[in-house]
């Protein structure tokens, strides 16, 4: 009995050694890529990783989901502290400044140059690249899954309510909403308390600052000012629409979020990410006519570009040199026009390079029914050259500041709290967070 066990063990050991020695495995450098997608988006990213592994023989990428953007950042931090960080991490927009000050990464440009790739950095849309670049314009991470907020509306419902105009200003949104309501629709405009759409995107398209100086780009001494801008008018305007029963809150606490509210045709207008375009197209009843437009602006306001959302890919410092060769190869691979187009098709994310976008436009991608309208996201992102208010948001611990804002919005829209008082309080508490962040990184400057 004992002998058999020993023999089996030995045989196993031999087999393992033989496998280990086989050239196919021994020569491949394996490296990890952590990301925050789940569900369909995760499957699509796994497809991309598989394609990369099939296309070359030197490297093997292991793509591992961390369940959400926030968890990816948290796990990357924990792993970095334990010196077990992945070679590449997908970090969402709100984590950008935390990453930049961490010194735990290798700048995008340096990585590609060191590994012999020439990238035309000017090929990235400035409206996208600026979010992840230093003040001097040096890209720190690779723009990957980029999105922006869009205005979705149900054309069928518009026709039934006799609306002939497009909802391109807030005044028209209200007018359309009143007509929809008169036609018997219970939720003309569905909204939630997500500061990304409500505060950030609104402020950008109206060229309003969220914080000074330059939304944090010019220093860690940033001060939140959104409680003194047109954002206050917007909150009051939506509050007025809520009182008219034109605007209706849809949150997961109430049992239905805005994307589902739109695709189930409960609500006829929403603001949400262009990344949801694919899912909404798949889930809305076949034959429904709907479209996306750029976010509305107030009448008499000059429209500016919206902000890029989504995430970028950061290459983490402290990995063996061989892994960086692989990481660079992977980043180069997914940036190729055909890969960029494939990714943009199967998700809803927009192409991040001009050549990628031009190629897709040329082959008629945006003319086909399920993808029609997605080009307006690019239009929105490139509507004007980036300014201090539309370049991006570079604030520390920004997730927590977002939470202060959404709590204020919740109090305003659910509990009828005073608009100005709540926004003042959110700004004050947000500023305390910024001051703590500034002290944590005392002596460091933004570059």
């Amino acid at each position, binding site marked *: 009995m004992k002998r058999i066990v020993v023999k089996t063990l030995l045989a196993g050991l031999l087999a393992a050694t033989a496998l280990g020695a086989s050239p196919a495995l021994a020569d491949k450098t394996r490296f990890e890529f952590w990301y925050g997608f789940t569900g369909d988006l995760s499957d699509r990213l796994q497809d991309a990783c598989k394609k990369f592994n099939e296309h070359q023989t030197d490297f093997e990428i292991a793509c591992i989901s961390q369940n959400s953007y*926030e968890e990816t*950042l*948290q796990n990357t*931090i924990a792993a*970095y*502290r334990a010196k077990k960080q992945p070679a590449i991490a997908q970090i969402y927009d709100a984590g950008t400044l*935390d990453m930049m*000050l*961490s*010194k*735990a990464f290798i700048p995008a440009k340096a990585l590609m140059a060191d590994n012999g790739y020439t990238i035309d950095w000017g090929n990235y849309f400035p409206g996208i690249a600026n979010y992840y670049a230093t003040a001097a314009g040096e890209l720190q991470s690779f723009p990957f899954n980029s999105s922006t907020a869009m205005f979705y509306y149900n054309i069928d419902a518009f026709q039934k309510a006799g609306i002939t105009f497009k909802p391109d200003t807030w005044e028209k949104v209200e007018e359309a909403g009143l007509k929809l309501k008169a036609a018997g629709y219970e939720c003309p405009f569905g909204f939630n308390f997500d500061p990304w759409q409500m505060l950030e995107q609104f402020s950008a398209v109206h060229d309003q600052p969220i914080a000074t100086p330059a939304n944090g780009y010019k220093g860690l001494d940033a001060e939140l000012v959104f409680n003194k801008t047109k954002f206050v008018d917007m909150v009051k305007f939506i509050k007025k629409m809520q009182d008219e029963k034109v605007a209706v*809150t849809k*949150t*997961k*606490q*109430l*049992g*239905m979020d805005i994307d589902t509210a739109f695709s189930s045709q409960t609500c006829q207008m929403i603001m949400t990410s262009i990344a949801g375009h694919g899912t909404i197209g798949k889930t809305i009843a076949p034959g429904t006519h709907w479209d996306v437009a750029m976010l509305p602006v107030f009448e008499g306001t000059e429209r500016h570009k919206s902000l890029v959302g989504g995430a970028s890919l950061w290459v983490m410092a402290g990995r063996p040199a061989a892994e960086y060769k692989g990481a660079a190869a992977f980043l180069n691979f997914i940036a190729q026009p055909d890969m960029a187009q494939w990714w943009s098709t199967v998700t809803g994310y927009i192409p991040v390079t001009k050549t990628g976008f031009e190629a897709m436009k040329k082959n008629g991608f945006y003319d086909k029914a399920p993808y029609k309208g997605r080009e307006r996201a690019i239009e929105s992102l490139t509507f004007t050259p980036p300014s201090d208010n539309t370049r991006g948001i570079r604030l520390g*611990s920004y*997730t*927590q500041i977002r*939470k202060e804002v959404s*709590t204020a919005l*919740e*109090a305003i829209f*659910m*509990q009828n*709290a005073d608009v100005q008082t709540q926004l003042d309080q959110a700004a004050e508490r947000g500023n*305390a*967070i910024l001051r*703590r962040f500034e*002290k*944590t*990184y*005392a002596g460091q400057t933004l570059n």
Partner: protein
Amino acid sequence: MEKRAVFRSGWVPLAFALPQLVLILLFFYWPVAAVVDWAFTLEPPFGGPAAFVGFANFRDAFADPFYWDSVLVSLVFATVGALSAILIGLVLALAVDRHLPGTGLFRVIYILPFAVAGPAAGMAFRFILAPERGLAASLNALWPDVWNPAKYGDHALVLIIIIFVWKWSGYTFIFLLAGLQSVPRSLSEAAAMDGAGPFRRAVDVQIPLLAPTLFFLLVTMMTEGFVGSDTFGIVHAVTAGGPNRATELMVFRIVDEAFHGLNYSGASAQSIILIGLIMIFTFIQFRFIEKRVHYK
């Protein structure tokens, strides 16, 4: 005859204990030491030099009016949740202890919720009790806004207490049933002979004899309500601390501050305050309640 190993030198027993000691040091004292260290500094998320700030992190916590709200909400949640879970567990245990037909099945049914993870239970209840759909929708159709945890803070608090109690009643039930079954039957029978009905027997005979179990459950349930991972899981899955901070329990704030805000130092300081608070409660419980508990 008594069997006893005698070690002449001191290092042999130490060697036996060493793996355990290493594990305790590694997984308990080391993290605690890090928490104490971070509580007095401003720890950058990715590491690196951290400035010493003394008690500033504690002062920040105490200076925040919402922090005190979270202390109050935690107190209400833990007390109401613990007492309700114990009470329901007790009623169920008394019922099952009567040896009616089918008690075996009920025993299984009552313990089952405990096997469900807190966040999963929370998700289920969020849908069951969502104001615009599920059971509550028909209530709201009759009386508008009679139940809306997304709007009213007290409703939200009731909601998470219901989930907590639903989950932990099975746990208290098992302990209390075991306790009841160790009460000598002769005592109940004697009481019955004297003409005591089921209620009298429960109040005068069984419950006093359960006092040690009840006390144990009170301490553990209160602690669970304050710092349990389920407590965080439920709040995280159901209300996310809202509406307008109404369900921001202390433990939720700590995790939120640490992992969402990347404010490890503030969260560490709040952890120390929370541990201190639990120590005070446990002390009070032992000092004043345990005196009235009679162990056999």
